[in-house]
């Protein structure tokens, strides 16, 4: 009994308050480890306060399911809920009981899904959220009567009441103790009901061994077989009977298939039941929605709405950059210092090199992403909790429609400004597969934070000292804006192209609920941010770390000891001829230049022979039309670990420090006769479009369940980058930017 676990799923409509309740009950202590069949999509956690349960009771494990409007799943996110709830295979970890969260301010529509869940016949508690809002607006609900009508415990589960966990625990114990929930059904016609019940019983028999969920609960059967149209082999023969029944009873509308009519009848029967039995129990004054309505009058206004939206996005980016910047440089410094310290403390050799340049650098390049990801997701979680993101999707729908997408693609693309990987994961709310895949395939074109160090270095080196345009617009700042614009425009254009070619489809229909405005709790926002960061470190971090180590090896091996020895001898010879400290300045400088040049030559000679050097050399002819030199070519290979690695890679290959702030690298780039504004533009455009992140390919593979789409992503990004860079480079040369 002691280590027995009672698995309880928290289910309900989107925005009903599920995550809030989950966090309250678990104290945000999420359990890692996967639920069978689903990966990271449903959160798990243990009920924190055990003292609320009788002694000897099993521990309660809660599962925070994604929101859904129906068991008949329309989006991959809803499919997760359906899979978990309908999973009845013996030995599976299907939930044994349910907590259905119902928003009292949206009672009827929330109860539709709740009724479907009650039909599953599992022990169930209905948890009413937003009862504080109901009271504040002078509304009342006859809670006791509702419990009688529904036949399961109903509790007030308002967010900020310390007694909420106790009430839920008591109700859960009560629900578990109740004799098997009564099979309820909703057909208004007794004869129809009898026929279906008979069929359902036989269906249950046919599937009992396979799916425990079908143990006679007509509702489950109806939801999965009728509404979702899903058939298991065992039930296939009964399908014909079902069709016959449908044809017998649902023939009211000529031209509409009987099965569709039956599905609709099932939905209408539930709403009719709710209207008849539940609606009279709720007394909500007519003015109840006014506050959200007043806000919406501004937020969705045709003129004020878009302006407010632009202002919000502007503020979001401002906070993201300004807030993350100091943290990022702090992290870079810390990892730099750690690397230097380790490099000095350990004996020289390949192990030292692996640790410093492979592992520490790799972990560092994962951690530098976290500030921007954390800030962006804190802001997104806040805006989502408020209800603003749904409005943003509403406002952006018109823009997205131009390229064949709908408003729900907006949030994934916005997230991709921090990193495409969480952006790609958040496409799961998009219903149709083609719409979702288009969004996934263009998200990597949005300017993620990894591109920024590269942009910063090249813009600062080649443009910041140019005269401001018209005396006011700084060229580097304008350049940054244009790069963001180019990425976004590229993403939209690619979406349009994919829609016209590989992933055709009509304009996706948008159905989106706009929840009332609410102020989210700080701790819920914090839990969300923590989860995102951990998720990123796990998903992207491992890939980035692995590629960094692999690329470190490719940049190091095979080694050429005789070449190294030759250069080292020359270097030490040069060292011996160093002019004295009091020698003329010109002599000291000349000697210094000699040393630097020799160091560079040594670096080139050594990397030339490594795997990366050979590959870089091999692909150079393809990149030469873009104005790229050998260092850039090798740097591009190194930056496959993470884009910002280009900076340190260039630093090393020019024999100067590997820090973007370093004046040395900027000087070296500026003094390299092969580098000028035209080549800089070419590299920048390359970074806007090129595929440079294996972690992204992994995320695409996971979400599309095929290697075909990541392969397409790599292909189209590379082609697009080449063509765009070529055009940009030639254009820049034509404009005369090829000179010093």
């Amino acid at each position: 009994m002691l280590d027995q676990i009672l698995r309880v799923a928290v289910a309900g409509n989107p925005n009903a308050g599920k995550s809030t309740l989950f966090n309250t009950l678990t104290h945000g202590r999420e359990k890692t480890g996967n639920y069978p069949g689903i990966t990271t999509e449903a959160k798990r956690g243990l009920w924190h306060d055990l003292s609320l349960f009788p002694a000897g009771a099993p521990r309660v494990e809660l599962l925070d399911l994604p929101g859904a409007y129906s068991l008949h799943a329309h989006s991959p996110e809803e499919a997760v809920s359906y899979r978990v709830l309908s999973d009845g295979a013996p030995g599976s970890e299907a939930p044994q009981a349910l907590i259905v969260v119902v928003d009292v301010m949206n009672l009827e529509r929330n109860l539709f899904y709740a009724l479907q869940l009650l039909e599953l016949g599992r022990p169930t508690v209905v948890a009413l959220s937003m009862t504080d809002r109901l009271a504040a607006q002078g509304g009342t609900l006859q809670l006791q009567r509702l419990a009688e009508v529904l036949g399961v415990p109903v509790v007030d589960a308002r967010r900020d009441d310390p007694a909420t966990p106790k009430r839920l625990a008591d109700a859960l114990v009560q629900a578990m103790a109740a004799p098997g929930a009564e099979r309820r059904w909703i057909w208004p016609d007794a004869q129809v009901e009898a026929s279906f019940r008979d069929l359902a019983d036989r269906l249950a028999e046919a599937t009992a061994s396979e799916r425990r969920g079908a143990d006679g609960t007509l509702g489950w059967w109806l939801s999965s077989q009728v509404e979702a149209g899903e058939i298991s082999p065992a039930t296939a023969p009964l399908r014909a009977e079902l069709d016959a029944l449908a044809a017998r009873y649902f023939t009211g509308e000529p031209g509409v298939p009987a099965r569709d009519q039956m599905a609709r009848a099932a939905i209408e029967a539930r709403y009719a039941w709710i209207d008849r039995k539940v609606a009279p129990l709720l007394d909500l004054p007519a003015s109840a929605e006014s506050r959200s309505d007043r806000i919406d009058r501004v937020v969705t206004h045709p003129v004020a709405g878009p302006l407010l939206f632009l202002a919000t996005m502007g503020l979001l980016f401002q906070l993201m950059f300004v807030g993350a910047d100091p943290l990022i440089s702090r992290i870079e410094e810390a990892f730099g210092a750690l690397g230097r310290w380790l490099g000095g403390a350990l004996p020289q050799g390949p192990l030292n090199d692996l640790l410093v340049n492979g592992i520490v650098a790799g972990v560092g390049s994962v951690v530098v992403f976290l500030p921007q990801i954390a800030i962006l997701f804190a802001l997104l979680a806040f805006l989502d909790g408020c209800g603003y993101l749904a409005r943003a999707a509403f406002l952006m729908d018109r823009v997205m429609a131009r390229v064949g997408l709908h408003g729900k693609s907006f949030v994934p693309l916005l997230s991709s400004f921090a990193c495409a990987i969480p952006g790609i994961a958040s496409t799961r709310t998009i219903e149709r597969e083609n719409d979702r895949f288009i969004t996934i395939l263009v998200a990597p074109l949005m300017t993620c934070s990894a591109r920024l160090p590269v942009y910063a270095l090249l813009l600062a080196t080649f443009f910041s000292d140019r005269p401001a345009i018209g005396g006011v617009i700084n060229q580097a700042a304008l350049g940054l804006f244009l790069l963001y614009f180019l990425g976004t425009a590229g993403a939209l254009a690619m979406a349009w192209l994919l829609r016209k070619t590989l992933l055709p489809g009509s304009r996706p229909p948008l159905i989106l609920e706009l929840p009332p405005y609410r102020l989210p709790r700080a701790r819920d926002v914090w839990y969300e941010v923590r989860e995102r960061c951990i998720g990123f470190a796990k998903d992207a971090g491992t890939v980035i770390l692995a590629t960094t180590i692999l690329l470190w090896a490719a940049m190091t091996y095979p080694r050429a000891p005789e070449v190294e020895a030759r250069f080292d001898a020359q270097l030490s010879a040069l060292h011996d001829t160093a002019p004295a400290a009091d020698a003329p300045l010109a002599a000291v400088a000349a000697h210094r230049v000699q040393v630097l040049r020799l160091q560079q030559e040594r670096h080139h000679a050594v990397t030339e022979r490594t795997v990366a050097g050979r590959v870089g050399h091999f692909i150079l002819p393809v990149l030469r039309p873009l104005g790229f030199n050998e260092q850039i070519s090798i740097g591009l290979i190194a930056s496959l670990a993470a884009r910002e690695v280009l900076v340190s890679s260039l630093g090393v290959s020019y024999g100067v420090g590997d820090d973007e702030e370093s004046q040395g690298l900027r000087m070296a780039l500026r003094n390299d006769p092969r580098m000028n504004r035209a080549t800089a533009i070419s590299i920048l455009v390359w970074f806007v479009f090129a595929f440079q992140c294996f972690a992204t390919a992994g995320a695409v593979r996971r979400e599309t369940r095929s290697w075909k789409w990541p392969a397409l992503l790599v292909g189209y990004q590379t082609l697009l980058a080449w063509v765009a860079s070529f055009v940009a480079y030639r254009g820049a040369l034509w404009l005369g930017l090829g000179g010093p």
Partner: protein
Amino acid sequence: MHPTLAQLPAGRTARVTDLRGCAESCQRLMEMGFTRGTLVEVLLRGTPSLIRLRHGRVTLSAELAQAVLVG
């Protein structure tokens, strides 16, 4: 022929009489509360439009608003 939700001017209230020509989406509309006899109010007309029903607000793209017959 009944008018559709897309034809109602903003501020008007009407009852849903039927859903036409949107198989899969129609089912979702119904699940979200657009059942026959439901009272709906047009808050904003256009693409997408904003509808109030059963104490909630839902936005619909034009094609879907056209699928909802009202009377």
